[in-house]
């Protein structure tokens, strides 16, 4: 009896010690999707963006992406954006994680939460690995979503067809079509944002042409933004006048800066 008591005592001590002093160390599994901290980042930040950008003359926003495993560089990026006061919001083009591990999403969220301006994150192909897409949905939100900043509609799309083995419609043309009429009176310009651009190996390229068709149905398409290629790109992929701007990876320490004014837009690559 005395012996059993000793074991129970030892176990209780181990349990107590671990509960109070080492919660961070008790990792269940890399793909546990046991989320600590803030969720639904995109929904919260979209409200903020829509409110702060209403009735402005122009909007200025940063496009970045592919920050997987470059935590120090992402911290420097946050500092660089915070050091200026002319930015309305940040669009992260996806790949916050490299392996789809739950921890990776939390680490990147915690760093990006340091931004003084609201940010949104689009899903990248690496974010889909393992249980990654489930974690992404909980921490950041829906895989296809849109918001309106100063009468510009931003349509953010999941374009990682290969990650879903073509089992889901990606890009989702039903979603895109609905966006034509959804809040129709509130916008008169459009920007498309995605992780993998059309004709990339990740995109379902059987849908590339229909994608171009749908994009051109929208009012005053300004340009499209993408990430994924880990280099700066600027190309009218379909030679139809719609530019696709690709952001670099975080390691290369630069971001894209866009200003949409009443009479057009400006584009700049800013090193940090």
């Amino acid at each position, binding site marked *: 009896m005395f012996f059993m008591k000793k*074991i129970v005592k030892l176990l209780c001590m181990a349990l107590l010690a*671990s509960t109070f002093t080492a919660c961070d160390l*008790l990792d269940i*599994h*890399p*793909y546990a999707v046991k989320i600590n901290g803030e969720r639904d980042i995109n929904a919260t930040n979209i409200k903020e963006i829509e409110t702060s950008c209403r009735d402005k003359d122009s909007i200025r926003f940063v496009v970045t992406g592919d920050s997987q495993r470059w*935590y120090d560089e992402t911290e420097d990026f946050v500092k660089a954006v915070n050091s200026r006061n002319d930015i309305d919001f940040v669009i992260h083009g996806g790949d916050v994680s490299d392996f789809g591990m739950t921890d990776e999403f939390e*680490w990147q969220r915690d760093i990006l939460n340091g931004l003084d301006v609201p940010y949104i994150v689009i899903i990248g192909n690496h974010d889909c690995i*393992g249980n990654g897409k489930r974690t992404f949905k909980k921490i950041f939100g829906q895989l296809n979503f849109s918001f309106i900043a100063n009468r510009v509609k931003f349509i953010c799309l999941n374009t990682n067809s290969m990650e879903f083995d073509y089992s889901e419609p990606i890009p989702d043309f039903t979603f895109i079509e609905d966006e034509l009429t959804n809040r129709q009176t509130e916008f008169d310009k459009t920007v498309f944002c995605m992780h993998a651009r059309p004709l990339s190996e990740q995109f379902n390229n059987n849908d590339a042409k229909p994608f171009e068709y749908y994009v051109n149905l929208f009012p005053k398409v300004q340009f499209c933004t993408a990430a994924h290629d880990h280099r700066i790109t600027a190309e009218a992929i379909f030679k139809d006048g719609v530019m696709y701007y690709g952001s670099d990876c975080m390691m290369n320490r630069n971001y894209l800066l866009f200003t949409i004014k009443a009479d057009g837009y400006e584009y700049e690559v800013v090193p940090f």
Partner: protein
Amino acid sequence: MKLFHSKYLLVLLLTVFSCSIFAQESHYDRRIHRYRKHWEAMIPTQSTVQMYGNMGLVSIGMGWDYGHKKQWETDLLFGLLPPYSSGKTHLTMTLKQNFIPWSISLNSTWAIEPLSCGIYLNTVYGPEFWTRQPERYPKGYYTFPSRVRANVYIGQRVVIHTPVEKRWFAKEIAVFYELSTSYLYLASAVGNKYLKPRDYISLSFGLKFQLF
């Protein structure tokens, strides 16, 4: 004298007879003995319950100890990964190799094993995880398998020898803890000051029951 002779003869006869039986069955006996010995070596000598350590919330399994001082152990554990926010429960399997170089006996009941170390491979079951990259990807698209991970650990154990009169299940019970990391975490930590040891090191603990 005659009586003695006949007794002697009887003993001699019996000895020869028994020897001849032994000689006749010795090959078979040896064979069966070997056969049993080999299969008996596969009877697990220990069972383990372990919590956390990137192998599931709780893992249960069995293992074998071997070596000159029983300093080597191999465990096969099955773990449970509760659904949490993923909405899906997953089963995991862990193959674990332990090395326990020293065991310091304090008295007839208590012993300390100041170092245990080893590696373990953990696999998680579910269609969203793969070991070999699915064919839809270009060659070498991802450089790591999402299903299997190698972990390394170091830890310590306290061993309790159960008193013979109170023994009902196990000869020894070891309480242990381990600090581990996997290569996915190491790959994340390398080149980043942002990640601290608490981010990439995991604590796990458990009980090992030495059955015999």
